[in-house]
Each structure stands twice: as C-alpha cells, then as structure tokens.
C-alpha cells in the first residue's frame, strides 16, 4: 500500500502515524509537506495526523485546512482515495469541508488525555471492517477541542446513514450524541478524535487500534 502522511508546521503526531502505517503495511509512507500541491502518484491512503497544526491558532485545523496540499487531498477524496484524519486531522477535515460539523472546545474546558472506551457503531466501512458492530474497544484520546457539534439535521443524517463510526461509551468532551468519529457519505473519509496509532501493540498497553489499520490495508490491497 502506498500511503502519504501530511506534514503541517506544529503537528507532533505525524511520525507516530508514519511508524504505525509502516508497521502494518511494511512500507514507509511518503511524508508530504503542506506547501506541496500534488500527492505522490498512486497514493492509496492519505493520513492527516494529530497534533496542533499551526499551534491551533485561529481555530484548530483552520490554517492547515487552507494549505496548498489540501486541494489535492480534496480531489483524491472525491475520486475515492481513503483519507484517515486523527485528532487534529479530524479537525482539519471538518474545516476543509470533507466532513460535516465542527470540533469545539471541550465542554468541561479540560484537556482530556486518557484511554477511553468506544463503541464501534458500524463495521461496514473500510476503516472498521475488522471490528464487530457494537464492540467496545479502548483507544487513547488527547485533545482540547474534541467536542463534536453539528446541527440536528446533520446529526440525524449521520446516524440514519450509518456514518457514525465510533461513539464514546461515556461522557468525554461534550460531543453531540457522544460522537467520536464519522465517515463521509461515500465512506472513504474518516475523522476521529481518539488516536488508534497509540494503541497498536502490547507495549502501548493496548492494541485495539491495530485492526483499523489492518482493515484499511485489506481494503486497499
């Protein structure tokens, strides 16, 4: 699988994500600078990493979403190339309009940094095919702006179309309907606040994130 990890100034999870992808796919991703205008030829997976791009100035993900590479990401996504956005990557994808809604300051005002229990809502997507619908998994979160909000109509549509991928099993950050991750209408773009790349192997304390990457590899290969 030929993957690309976007690199924005200030992001601090791009290497973690690259290591995770290389472990699963056996091939190191291309690191693509935000000022580039093209993705490497034949990119099978675009990964948008977590970690405070542009220092979260203005709004989380706002500046990264308007960087030159995002036009190419939008075009690739429209053609069906899988796009995985984690944490700040989720914020970037909503700011870029590739996913609906917005991520706001956590309702409790605290930075939340701990393993959280999630329910896998849908195992039909290319991102969740290795999980069972309704299964409980544990993945760490680390964010200040993870409070997912959208209007009622959008929330109803997301739920009605089975586009909620993951839900927090308890209150974490005030997210509407406890949403932790959603996919786009075509099913090839996932945004999620928890960090599956930090739950990959026993040394991480938990390997529940591993199957997300394995499912992707299987879908793309």
């Amino acid at each position, binding site marked *: 699988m030929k993957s690309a990890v976007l690199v924005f100034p200030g992001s601090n999870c791009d290497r973690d994500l690259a290591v995770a992808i290389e472990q699963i796919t056996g091939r190191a991703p291309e690191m693509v600078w935000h000022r580039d205008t093209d993705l490497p030829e034949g990119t099978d997976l675009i990964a948008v990493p977590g970690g405070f791009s542009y220092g979260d100035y203005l709004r989380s993900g*706002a500046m990264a979403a*308007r960087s030159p590479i995002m036009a190419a990401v939008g075009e690739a996504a429209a053609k069906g190339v899988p796009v995985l956005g984690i944490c700040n990557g989720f914020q970037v994808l909503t*700011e870029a309009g590739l996913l609906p809604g917005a991520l706001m300051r956590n309702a409790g*005002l605290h930075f939340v940094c701990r393993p959280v229990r999630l329910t896998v809502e849908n195992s039909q997507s290319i991102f969740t095919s290795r999980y069972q619908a309704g299964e409980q998994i544990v993945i760490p979160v680390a964010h200040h702006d993870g409070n997912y909000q959208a209007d009622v109509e959008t929330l109803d549509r997301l739920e009605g179309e089975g586009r909620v991928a993951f839900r927090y099993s308890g209150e974490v950050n005030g997210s509407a309907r406890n949403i932790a991750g959603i996919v786009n209408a075509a099913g090839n773009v996932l945004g999620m606040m928890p960090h599956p790349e930090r739950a990959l192997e026993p040394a991480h304390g938990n390997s529940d994130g591993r199957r997300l990457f394995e499912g992707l590899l299987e879908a793309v290969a």
Partner: protein
Amino acid sequence: MKARVFVTLKPGVLDPQGKAIHHALEGLGFEGVEDVRAGKLIELDLAEGTSDDEIAEMCRKLLANTVIENFKIERLGA
C-alpha cells in the same frame, strides 16, 4: 485603512469559554451576570479600497467557521 472583524459563536452553540468566564465573575462576587459569550476580535490593516465584499470573503474562507460562528465587520476611520 483598518477594519475589525468580530467572530462570535452562533446563538445556541454551547460556549464553554463563556461559561468559565461567567463562573469566574460569579466567584469574584459580581451578581446579576445573566450569561457570557466569548468571541474573537481580529484587526486587519488593509490596502485602501478593499471592499466589504472582499473582507466578508476573508471571513467566510478563513476567519470564521460559518458552521458554528457568525462574523461582523467594522471599518475604522474614514
């Protein structure tokens, strides 16, 4: 010319920062504060002749997230 852009959360959108400020004001003993909403003020120093439409375009494209935020433009001076 200078312009100011005020970015505020839309009515009905939960404002955790406003709530925290509200609690802090109550803690200081100020009574009668019904509600607090926090927003952003962005000052722009612009070329002469920049139109309101151009500033509004800046707001829609970057300065405000219109999913959750409103913006208001104020021109300063003549």
